[in-house]
C-alpha cells in the first residue's frame, strides 16, 4: 500500500476534504493538510486537492513546471484524470506567473456558473500587494497579500461567474473563491 497517495484511502480523503470545506468556507484563512505520497515537484497541499477531487471526468491543466512524466503518471494512475488544455480545464495547477493571463480559463455560464475552473496556485516568491478582503465566509475584513490583486477584483466583478482559487504552500491551504471582494490597501509612501 505504500505507493498509494493515501495510506487509508477513505479515511485520509475524508480528512483532506474537511480541510478543503473549511478553507473554502472561511476564505483568507490558512488550514492544514496532512502529508501524502506524491511527486516531489508538487506540494502536499496541491497534491491533496487533486487526489481528493479528481476522477476520470476531471480535466486537469498542468503548467510547464508541473507537466512532467512523474506528475502526469501519478495523476493519471491514481485518479484517471484527463490532462487538458487551459480552455477545458476543471482543475489548474501552476505557479502564479506561469498561469497568467487568466483569460483562457473557463468561468462558467450564467445558467451553470459552477462549470468553471478551480485554480491551484503553488507558492513561489512573487510580488504581492497588501489587500483586505471581505465577503461570504469572512467575519471581519481580513488583511492578506495577493499577487496582481486587480485580477482578483476583475474576477469578483464576474460574480456569480468566475474562477475559484486555492493557494498552496507545503502543508497549508488558503482559498479565495469568486465571491471574495478585494480592496487594495494604498501604501503610505
Amino acid at each position, binding site marked *: 500500500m505504500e505507493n498509494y497517495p493515501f495510506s487509508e484511502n477513505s479515511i485520509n480523503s475524508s480528512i483532506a476534504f474537511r480541510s478543503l470545506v473549511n478553507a473554502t468556507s472561511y476564505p483568507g484563512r490558512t488550514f492544514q493538510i496532512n502529508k501524502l505520497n506524491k511527486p516531489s515537484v508538487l506540494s502536499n497541499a496541491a497534491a491533496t486537492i487533486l487526489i481528493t477531487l479528481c476522477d476520470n471526468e476531471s480535466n486537469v491543466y498542468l503548467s510547464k513546471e508541473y507537466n512532467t512524466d512523474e506528475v502526469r503518471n501519478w495523476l493519471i494512475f491514481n485518479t484517471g484524470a484527463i490532462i487538458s488544455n487551459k480552455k477545458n480545464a476543471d482543475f489548474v495547477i501552476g505557479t502564479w506567473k506561469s498561469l497568467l493571463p487568466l483569460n483562457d480559463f473557463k468561468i462558467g455560464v450564467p*445558467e451553470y456558473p459552477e462549470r468553471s475552473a478551480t485554480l491551484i496556485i503553488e507558492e513561489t516568491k512573487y510580488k504581492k500587494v497588501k489587500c483586505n478582503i471581505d465577503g461570504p465566509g469572512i467575519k471581519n475584513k481580513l488583511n492578506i497579500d495577493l499577487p496582481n490583486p486587480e485580477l482578483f477584483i476583475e474576477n469578483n466583478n464576474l460574480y456569480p461567474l468566475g474562477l475559484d482559487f486555492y493557494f498552496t504552500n507545503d502543508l497549508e491551504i488558503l482559498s479565495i473563491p469568486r465571491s471574495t471582494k478585494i480592496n487594495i490597501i494604498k501604501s503610505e509612501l
Partner: protein
Amino acid sequence: MNEMSKNENLDIQIYNFAYLDENTKRMIRRALLKALCIPGYQVPFSSREMPMPYGWGTGGIQVTSACLIPKDILKVIDQGADDTTNAVSIRKFFQKTANVAVTEKTSDASLIQTRHRIPETKLKEKQILVYQVPIPEPLRFLEPRETETRKMHALSEYGLMYVKLYEDIAKHGHIETAYAYPIKTNGNYVTDPSPIPKFDNPKMNNSPAIQLFGAGREQRIYAIPPYTNVKSLDFEDYPFEAMKANFKCSICGSSDSYLDEIIVSDDGKRSYICSDTDYCKEQTKLNSKKED
C-alpha cells in the same frame, strides 16, 4: 480500514467509510465546494440510490457521508427532535457505517444533519449543518420548467416570487407563507431554506457555521457559507416577521423557542412544547438549578 465496515468472518471490507464509495464522494465533494463558492446556487449532482426511500433525507445523508470524518461527533434531528424515527435511523446508519460518535447536545456536535429545523442553541464556527431538502427550487411551484427557472436565476428575474408574496398580502392581509420562506443569499440567488419554519430564517443570516443542503430526489446540492448575508424576501411596508405560537413551553417554560402544538385530551385541549428537544432539556436543567 474502519472496524465497523469489516465482516468479521471474512475479514474483508464490506463497504466504504460512511457508506458511499470514493468515486461518488469525489463527485459530491466537487459539487459541495462549487456550492460554497457560489452561495445559494443549486449545483446539479448525480444523486445515488440510498438504502432509504426518497423523502427520508437521501440528499442530506449523501452530503453527510461525503463530509464525515472519523473524529466527528454527529447529531441528527427531525423537526428539532433527536428521538424521532427519521433521526434515530439516520444516526444509527452512520454509527454503523462510519463508527462516529453521536450526541444529542447541539454544542457538542461537529456535524448536525437536520430535517426542517435549525437548533435553538447558537451554532459555532466549523460546525456543519446539513439540511435535508425536498424541493430545492424556490420557483418550482410558480414555474414548473427547469429550463425556465434556470434562466430566471441566471437573470435574477424574481418578479414572480414577489408577485406571489404580494398576492398573499392582497388575499390574507399578510404574507401567509409560514415555512420554506424564500431567502436571498449573498444578495444574489433566491434560495429555498428547506421547509424550516420562518421563525428559523434569521438564524441563517451571518451564521458562523457552514450550512450545506442536499436534495436527493431532485439531485441538487447548495450551500450557505459562514458569515453570509441571508435576507428573507419582504416589502418595505410589509417587513418580514419571524413568528411562533405565542405560548410558553409546558415542559421548560421557555417563551423564546419554537413550539409544537400537541392535542392532549379527547376534547381538543392543547399544549405547547419546544420542538428542539435538546434545548428543552437544557432549559429544564437550568430551571432546576435556579430552584436549588
